[in-house]
């Protein structure tokens, strides 16, 4: 077999192989995409995503509630102190 024939056969086969592979690769890609879409649209995944979202919302709400609770505790402490002083003043005024 001479060199020219070898080169021609090799070139044609390489082009053919590359073409076949491109086609097969495109098919595999489409199939993978379809599978991914199916997976993302399934009820289980939707339910899981919904649960995740709710957990995140509840986490934010819990943090805010904690802050409010802390502020309220602070206010109560202040009012208690104020109340003690006022009671003392009342007692002093009464005794006069």
């Amino acid at each position, binding site marked *: *077999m001479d060199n020219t024939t070898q080169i021609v*056969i090799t070139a044609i*086969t390489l082009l*053919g192989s590359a073409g076949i*592979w491109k086609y*097969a690769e495109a098919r*595999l890609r489409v199939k*993978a995409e379809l599978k991914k879409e199916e997976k993302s649209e399934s009820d289980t995944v939707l339910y899981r995503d919904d649960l995740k979202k709710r957990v995140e919302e509840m986490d934010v709400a819990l943090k805010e509630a904690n802050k409010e609770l802390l502020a309220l505790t602070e206010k109560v402490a202040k009012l208690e102190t104020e109340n003690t002083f006022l009671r003392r003043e009342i007692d002093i005024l009464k005794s006069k």
Partner: protein
Amino acid sequence: MERSKSRYAEALKLVRKILTQLKEVWQYSDSQPTEITLAGALAVLFPIATYLEIGYAPIIQMPAIVAGLYQLYCVSGDCINCRVRASFITFCFYAVGAVLYLYKGYYWQGASYWGWILLTFSSFGSLKRIKKEQLHRNNG
């Protein structure tokens, strides 16, 4: 009559089950051993066999050794992109080999030459499996 019908149905069911399982194994099993075998055959068997049967063809035989070694390197490194690339190159070489044997008319001389077609299909199957794995890894 009824008994033979049910037996026939059972046998058919069993054959279908076996075929489905074989298809699953073919599509999703680990392909590293096949890749190593194909790469080894490409680096060693391919140049020797083509040299003895087709003649001296440096544009095919020399790069085939490099391609085989490159695939072995990729399998050892476990880089999926490298493996896809190397498998594609290996498939191309086997396809070239199969076409050269076809051009020489060897397939009509003996069934043992059909092994090149088998190797071409095997390398293509291996390439498809790795590509699927790559897509699966990328899609998460």
